[in-house]
């Protein structure tokens, strides 16, 4: 009998007052009873609109049916056929704009909590299973994967399952890409990423850290070393700044730097040797998920006041609804329709050697209003004349996007990029303009989501498989 409750079973979470002071995971996950209850809300529609909303086409109604039967391992097996990183996706996917946006239950009430169920199944599996996913016998083909973020891990996993010998080249000292340096512990515990990475290793994937492709080795050298195909999943790259005065003052970070210091370099731990600005008054400029991560990290590091400064209104704010809600609950203040025009630094007129010289003491902003829609249909923010004011902050975190990393493009001939610097690929295959080289994820699209990167990794893995199997014939 279906559960006709119009709302999702609530996700148990840490209390805002407690979690604002720790880096433990915010959402605690469904119990078996919660999961069963929520699964019963699924009507098992024949048309399966939710599957079409998933970039990797997880067979959603089928895995939910297994939950209803209390066969949680069976549910995992169904998800694992399509997704290499279910425990990650269940936590960080924007389900509300993907699978859940297509759910029939969403017409009258809330859609089925697909993401929450996926997470439950993955966590259940991780807690109980010991087996390594089966791989086909080695087929003798070697493939190189550049980057160990979501697209690289997915591509590597799919190919390893098909019997390929896969080597992943990671530039940093730790595998996981944005899952490790970007997304904070309280949203995605690093032990989960580690588990997924170890799973790949157990499947025979070799992961080499400290290998900066484009520098340590070039793509041409990878081919010389016997790799028959190369997948580039090198991620987004250099942070953008606004180009306003004061962006090089002490106390101005890119979100990438702030989050990398806290996540990858563990500045959030009391015993860490990594410096970071703690406490004080923080403005995060931008409205995406990365901005929310930076703001919520600042809260946890002890800031007395944290602002999100965004030039459009709440309606246009691109971050996931859940992240915005969590940020608000944790005390982040949203300054909407607000645009920074200058960051102001301290200067002691009497002492040129004052260490405080050059530190941020405020950010000049102007009020905005929404004007005519732009080419993408979003209403363009327009400054209101004479509306300037100074926001009293001592740390500014710029979270307004990234532009692609130049290291591979500048050292590889025949790889074409678009005017933003992203690799040009054939959408159905991930093929670049260079033979045998495929690409996907943020390196192609610019900053996007974990799941779309995974989708691209999957697409490329299938295309590589097809190309290399044809070659053998």
């Amino acid at each position, binding site marked *: 009998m279906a559960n006709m409750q119009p709302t999702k079973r609530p996700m148990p979470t840490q209390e805002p007052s407690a979690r604002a002071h720790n880096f433990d995971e915010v959402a605690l996950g469904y119990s078996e009873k919660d999961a069963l209850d929520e699964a019963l809300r699924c009507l098992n529609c024949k048309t399966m609109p939710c599957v079409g909303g998933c970039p990797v086409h997880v067979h959603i109604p089928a895995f939910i049916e297994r939950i209803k039967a209390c066969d949680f391992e069976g549910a995992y097996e169904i998800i694992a056929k399509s997704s290499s990183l279910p425990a990650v996706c269940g936590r960080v996917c924007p389900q509300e704009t993907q699978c859940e946006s297509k759910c029939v239950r969403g017409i009258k009430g809330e859609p089925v909590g697909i993401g929450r169920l996926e997470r439950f199944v993955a966590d259940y599996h991780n807690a109980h299973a010991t087996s390594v996913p089966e791989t086909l016998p080695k087929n003798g083909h070697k493939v190189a994967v550049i980057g160990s973020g979501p697209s690289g891990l997915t591509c590597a996993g799919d190919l390893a399952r098909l019997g390929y010998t896969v080597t992943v080249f990671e*530039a*940093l*000292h730790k595998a996981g890409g944005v899952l490790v*340096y970007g997304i904070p512990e309280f949203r995605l515990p690093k032990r989960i990423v580690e588990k997924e990475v170890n799973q790949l290793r157990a499947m025979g994937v070799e992961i080499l*850290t*400290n*290998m*900066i492709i484009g*520098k*340590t*080795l070039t793509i041409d050298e990878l081919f010389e070393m016997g790799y028959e195909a190369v997948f580039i999943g090198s*991620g*987004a*790259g*250099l*942070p953008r*700044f606004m*180009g306003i005065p004061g*962006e*090089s*003052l*002490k*106390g101005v*970070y*890119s979100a*990438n*730097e702030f989050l*990398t*210091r806290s996540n*990858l*370099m*563990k500045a959030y731990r009391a015993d*860490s*040797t*990594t*410096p970071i600005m703690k406490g004080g008054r923080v403005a995060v400029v931008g409205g995406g998920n990365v901005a929310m991560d930076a703001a919520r990290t600042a809260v946890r590091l002890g800031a007395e006041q944290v602002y999100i400064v965004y030039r459009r209104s709440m309606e246009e704010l691109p971050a996931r609804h859940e992240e915005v809600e969590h940020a608000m609950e944790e005390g982040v203040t949203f300054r909407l329709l607000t645009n920074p025009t200058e960051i102001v630094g301290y200067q002691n007129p009497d002492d040129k050697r004052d*260490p405080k*010289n*050059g530190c941020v003491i405020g950010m000049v902003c102007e009020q905005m209003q929404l004007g005519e829609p732009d080419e993408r249909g979003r209403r363009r923010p327009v400054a209101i004349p004479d509306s300037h004011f100074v926001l009293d902050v001592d740390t500014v975190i710029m979270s307004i996007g990234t532009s692609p*990393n*130049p*290291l591979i493009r500048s050292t590889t001939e025949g790889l074409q990029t678009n005017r933003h610097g992203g690799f040009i690929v054939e959408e159905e295959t991930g093929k670049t303009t260079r033979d045998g080289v495929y690409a996907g994820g943020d390196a192609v699209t610019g900053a996007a989501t974990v799941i779309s990167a995974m989708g691209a990794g999957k697409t490329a893995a299938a295309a590589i498989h097809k190309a290399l199997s044809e070659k053998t014939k």
Partner: protein
Amino acid sequence: MYTIVSKKQLNPSVVQMDIEAPFVARKAQAGQFIILRVDEEGERIPLTVAGYDREAGTVRIIFQTVGATTDALARLHVGDAICDFAGPLGEPTKLDGLRRVLIVGGGVGCAIAHPIAKALHDMGASVTSVIGFRNKDLVILEDEFRSISDRLFVMTDDGTYGERGNVCLPIERLLSAGERFDEVITIGPLVMMKFVVASVRPYGIPCTVSMNPIMIDGTGMCGGCRLTLVRDGERIVKFACVDGPDFNGYEVDFDEALSRGAMYREFEMKAREASCCLFDKEVR
């Protein structure tokens, strides 16, 4: 893991090490840098390549003990290993077509200046070197510079060795006497490079500086190493890790770089004190 195959104390605070890192050694060129981590809990620090042996697969680093990480590194011995060593990063120093070059190194910066001077010497260029230190005890690489330089000027601030004064003294003497160079390449403390640029500017000789800002990933991801170039009145943001570390000295906003370099000074001093205390405990 990356094994330390040789270690030499160049002066009381400067250490030279050869590290086994075959992939980096295959590619390294003068002017590039590496990123290392001593242990699993350590920070990532950039160090410029001071030399390499492609056949032996080793890379030479020379560093001054200035903080917790360099202290920890200096305490390691031959046969010990560090957990990460990545590179080579950054663009190599551009040497093509240079025939007469003035190399100016200051302090531990001489460790970076030396491979560049050597590369120029090996190309057949005429190399004039000026190396400066605070005092006699801190002088490093004098013999190495002498063997590859057509002329060498050794300066100390207090006059305890070589000539007394800063590196600008011989530069101004040479230039005002009508000497000309295709390029001046300077590597050392920011303040020194700022003054070298000021000394060379009136003569219109191209002047390259090697910037060494605070970095985290070193691969073009975090943006912490940004600096500002002023070109035709326009301020342009560049990233030392992928655009540098070499820049046109006439364009660099040194005052901003000096300010940014001091961002964590207090934190660094505390971290170093803490690591020293820890070391004391170990010794006891």
